[in-house]
């Protein structure tokens, strides 16, 4: 599956071949989100038009207006006629003509968990699609609506987490240990309005009192619940792709480990997963996966890295994820082009690859500065 973009926003030349797990890295404002949104556009254009039509949105067949509705207010100028190019699986996508025709009724198959997911929960309840203004990006509106629909599966007074129908016990254990600690996520009613709260004993904390990490994580958890439904279903059959932006937001490194392990579960269950990230921890895990596989390490080695218990289901997860194809792309701010840095070769002459797209540059400069200071300490002492 190949996505090619030219001269769109900050992107001059993006050429991406997706693996089972694909990761985008690069500084802020280099086009990572735009590329992910174009992936959804490539796969789900019909479904997006269908959804927009259902909520009364009308772009009158005009590309600029559609871009304002889809990417958000102010993004109408992303596309430059005569310069911008958009190809999917090697063929050009004729956006102008496709947007003028009626959608073919195909359901969407990309589940997108956006970076702004914290906005999906206002006062502890997911907002419906129509609660947002038309200038809010489509991906946020739709994610929020998906969560609102998911809430129909829970009863007032019920516990959403930990709850044995949702996620296997190993993941629940790790999430309790690394994220929720003593708190439960519960649905209650306050002044006739349902809302999610964090409960510990009799203490009940509403959304606005949660920490930044808790506010970032709960929408992500609900998104994972959507994707990993209770048995007997292994996955949502119509969803083929999962996009997860910045899984690390607000999370301690131990929590990031747990979420990354759950991302591996998504891959093993057959979803094609795309991440964007600003944390070296994700690339460190992928670098390790590569070398563990190359050296025929046991699944225990991978689970040991995550400090995860070696149970039969996690063993199967580790065994399977080590067979999956992983791709990493660096979005270069200088050239506006993407580079395939999947080898994550720390010895590479390519600065983008050896510095892992900028994620380990600071660490490298730290080492250089301290090593130099130590090497010259005696000299400074004499001076």
């Amino acid at each position, binding site marked *: 599956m190949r996505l090619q973009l030219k001269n769109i926003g900050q992107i001059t030349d993006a050429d991406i071949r997706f693996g089972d797990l694909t990761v985008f890295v690069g500084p802020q404002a280099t086009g990572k989100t735009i590329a992910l949104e174009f992936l959804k556009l490539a796969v789900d254009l019909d479904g997006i038009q269908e959804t927009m039509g259902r909520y009364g949105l009308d772009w009158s067949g005009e590309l600029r207006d559609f871009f304002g509705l889809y990417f958000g207010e102010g993004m109408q100028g992303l596309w430059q006629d005569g310069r911008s190019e958009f190809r999917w699986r090697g063929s050009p996508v004729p956006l102008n003509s496709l947007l003028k025709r009626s959608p073919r009724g195909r359901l969407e198959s990309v589940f997108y968990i956006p970076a702004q997911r914290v906005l999906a929960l206002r006062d502890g309840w997911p907002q419906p699609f129509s609660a947002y203004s038309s200038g809010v990006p489509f991906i946020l509106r739709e994610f929020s609506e998906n969560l609102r629909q998911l809430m129909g599966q829970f009863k007032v007074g019920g516990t959403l987490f930990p709850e044995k129908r949702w996620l296997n016990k190993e993941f629940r254990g790790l999430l309790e240990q690394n994220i929720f600690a003593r708190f439960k996520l519960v649905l209650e009613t306050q002044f006739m309005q349902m809302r999610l709260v964090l409960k510990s004993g009799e203490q009940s904390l509403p959304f606005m009192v949660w920490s930044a990490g808790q506010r970032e994580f709960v929408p992500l958890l609900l998104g994972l619940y959507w994707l990993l439904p209770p048995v007997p279903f292994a996955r949502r059959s119509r969803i083929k792709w999962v996009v997860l932006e910045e899984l690390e937001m607000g999370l301690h490194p131990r929590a990031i480990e747990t979420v990354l392990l759950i991302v591996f579960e998504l891959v093993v269950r057959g979803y094609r997963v795309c991440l964007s990230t600003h944390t070296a921890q994700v690339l460190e895990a992928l670098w390790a996966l590569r*070398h563990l596989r190359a050296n025929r390490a046991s699944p225990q080695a991978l689970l040991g890295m995550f400090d995860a218990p070696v149970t039969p289901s996690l063993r199967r997860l580790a065994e399977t994820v080590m067979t999956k194809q992983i791709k990493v792309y660096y979005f270069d701010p200088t050239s506006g082009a993407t580079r395939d840095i999947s080898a994550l*070769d*720390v*010895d*590479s*002459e390519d600065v983008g690859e*050896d510095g892992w797209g900028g994620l380990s540059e600071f*660490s490298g400069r*730290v*080492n*250089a500065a*301290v*090593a*130099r*200071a*130590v*090497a*010259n*300490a*005696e*000299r400074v002492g*004499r001076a």
Partner: protein
Amino acid sequence: MSGAWQPGLRALREADRNRIDSEDTSRIKGSVDVESCLKTRYRDQRQWDYAVGYQPTNLGVEVVYWIEVHPANPRAFDTVREKLASLQKWLSQHAAELSAMDKAFVWISSGKTTLGDTQRRQLTLLGLRQVGRFFKIPSKFGV
């Protein structure tokens, strides 16, 4: 070592010359094959590979890059540490002038780098910077 100085990177073995670069190669003033110089006198010690003299743009004096080309894997860690200790001892006891110059100790990997973060930090605290298979000398020193 004074008789062993050669201009540019000529003192380095050919395979190792390609591992070092600079934004302005004319600022690479000279090099010495340290191992060849010291191995006869200090037979029982492991020797460091090279010294490279460089004129940075932000200083009025030359600095010395002490370069070791060696596999960068956990097994080699102790060997390189030992070489560094020998070099630092020799500098402090027999080469006061060289020791007084601004310097950096750099380990260039001759193969795949598989050192972990902990080992890299240990090296950093010894004053040694482990880079990948190539080292580009920065135009400024200490910045």
